[in-house]
């Protein structure tokens, strides 16, 4: 019995600290020499304990493993807490278009479409609506399409003083170039220094 409660505690600790679902296989591989445990059995016991003690979470079986999740009745509150209320959220498409406008402004819609390889009509109207971009006149090219640039609101939202403060592409490249190794390798290096 004493052993079982220790096993329960270990499984619980793994469930709390592991980002990936906890699996029997991995337990056997890493700590199995000391702990021959039956994960499904222990999970069931833990779930029993959680229900009895009215914990607001339980252990769910997901693709090939187990993980702790909150109970459905708290879903709405958790969602509201995690989605910072009132802050705007942009789709990937909108972010793409915004990035293109930020670095290439002023730029006309056909040019944005060409870079993105997709029509940007809807996205541009969203950005205009949120006042992240604004019209900056017309291009001289055929059809004289509208030109867009980023707005004051854009700068405020991203905490910039001017568009000159945008991270320079070169700086980003430098940042990326400085990563010849994976993070794990870098950590190893740091640890051994």
């Amino acid at each position, binding site marked *: 019995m004493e052993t079982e409660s220790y096993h329960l505690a270990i499984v619980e600790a793994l469930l709390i600290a592991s980002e990936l679902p906890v699996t029997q296989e991995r337990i056997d591989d890493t700590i199995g020499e000391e702990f021959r445990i039956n994960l499904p059995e222990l999970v069931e016991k833990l779930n029993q304990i959680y229900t009895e003690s009215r914990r607001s979470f339980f252990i769910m079986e997901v693709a090939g493993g187990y993980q702790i999740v909150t109970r459905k009745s708290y879903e709405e509150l*958790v969602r509201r807490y995690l989605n910072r209320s009132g802050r705007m959220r942009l789709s990937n498409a909108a*972010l793409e278009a915004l990035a293109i406008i930020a670095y290439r402004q002023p730029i006309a819609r056909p040019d944005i479409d060409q870079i993105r390889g997709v029509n940007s009509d809807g996205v541009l109207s969203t950005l205009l609506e949120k006042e992240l971009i604004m019209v900056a006149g017309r291009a001289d090219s055929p059809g004289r399409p509208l030109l867009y640039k980023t707005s004051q609101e854009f700068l405020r939202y991203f905490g910039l003083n001017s568009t000159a403060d945008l991270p320079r592409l070169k700086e980003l490249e430098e940042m990326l170039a400085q990563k010849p190794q994976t993070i794990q390798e870098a950590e190893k290096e740091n640890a051994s220094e």
Partner: protein
Amino acid sequence: MDYKVHLNVFEGPLDLLLYFIKRDEINIYDIPIARITQEFLEYLEVIQTLNLRSAGEFIEMASTLMQIKAQMLIPRLADAIANQTIEDPRTALVERLLEYKKFKELSYDLAVLEEQQLPYFPRKVNSEYLGQAIPLNDVLQNVTLIHILAAFKRVLERIPETPSFHQVNEISATIATQTDFVYRHFIKCTKVSFSRLAESIKERIVLVVTFLAILDMVRRGQVKIRQSDLFEDFIIEKVE
């Protein structure tokens, strides 16, 4: 040479000078500049011989030291320094050393805090299966294409270079086959992380095609991409 042991320990020239000062119990306000310069130069030689790291910063400090040494050797100046009629040429260096020393000590304090914190593993949330339909927190904030590319680049770096060059493999992967490949992962679950997709891919070029396939799927509105931060893995989610 007793420096050998310490070669990798010194963070830079200031660190090395502090080491000399501590080892010889030197009064930091009265550094015997000739002796220290001599030792510093010896160390510099070792660095250069072994080509251990860029010696530029050490060379710069060596020239500063030699300059100070030269000034202190001029008898007239030496008298003036002693009588405090002109400023000691060592002052600027001493202040730099003191400032560096202060931060070095603070970094030891941080190391102690780090050590205290290491035994506790914080709660980790698996964004791939948050379950209960809880959306990821703020995932899309401040995410740009560059973030996605950065994640891609990182995954790419994990895969070794394609075989040797005399062995030209025909690339079997196309955007179409890799789109199917991604879709196969949606049978069990509507979300899959890029790193998970990449696990079964052994060749860089196939990974590249897979990445292009994903971008193509995004463009077609078949999937959405979410990412929590720069260099993080990203999650491909099927659009129903």
